């Protein structure tokens, strides 16, 4: 019963990538300014939802063959292990390490273990959001 929505599909092909790039930008912007894993994850999820709206769930599953529950679990493990690494140094849980490095191409860059934690958050948010949407959307 779907109408063949050419405009939506064509626009989606472009817009999805813009949203995804913006999600990555927001994710790294969260380092010192507003943004971060949660917002980035939501944006990524919204890009995938847009794909689902324009095409359908089966097609999107073929494009992105990811088990979102697994993604959540991986995210949880990354976030937890980043935070738990402090246990091995016998400093309070969640204590992060950071330093400045001179990287080729980037110049002086600050690397922070909180970014890894944020990566975990990002994966959890994408995983949970997509799991919920798939649960509602699948059984029609």
């Amino acid at each position: 019963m779907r109408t063949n929505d050419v405009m939506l599909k064509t626009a989606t092909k472009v817009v999805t990538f813009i949203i995804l790039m913006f999600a990555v930008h927001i994710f790294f912007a969260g380092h010192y300014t507003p943004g971060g894993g949660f917002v980035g994850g939501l944006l990524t999820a919204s890009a995938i939802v847009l794909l689902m709206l324009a095409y359908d769930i089966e097609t999107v599953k073929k494009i992105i063959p990811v088990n979102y529950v697994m993604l959540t679990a991986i995210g949880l493990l990354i976030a937890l292990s980043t935070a738990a690494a402090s246990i091995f140094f016998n400093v309070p849980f969640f204590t992060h390490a950071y330093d400045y490095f001179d990287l080729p191409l980037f110049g002086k860059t600050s690397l922070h273990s909180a970014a890894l934690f944020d990566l975990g958050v990002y994966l959890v948010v994408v995983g949970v959001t997509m799991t919920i949407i798939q649960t509602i959307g699948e059984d029609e």
Partner: protein
Amino acid sequence: MEIIMSFVIGFLFMAAVYLMLSKSLIRIIIGTGLLSHGAHLLILTMGGLGGTAPPVVADGVSVSDYADPLPQALILTAIVISFAVTSFFLVLAYRAYQELGTDNMNLMRGTEDND
């Protein structure tokens, strides 16, 4: 400004209570959403609305200019939680609608005796 915010919060709570007292499940869910928005705004207002600079140490900004970061952190956490709960509630409502064939709370009363 706090006065205006108080009215906004009161209005949100009022609308939330009205919606949650209705029979349709989807209205109830929207009501819970409004309720949590009201509570989040309440934190922001109660933390004090003074301060315009972001709470990051920078040149030329004195301590009195900073916005209080704690309410913002609390709100962010509360928003994430209410996002998760609301989405779970929506899934649950959808499943319940499929299984029970109704979204009317009046028809969902009853105990285990009259299934």
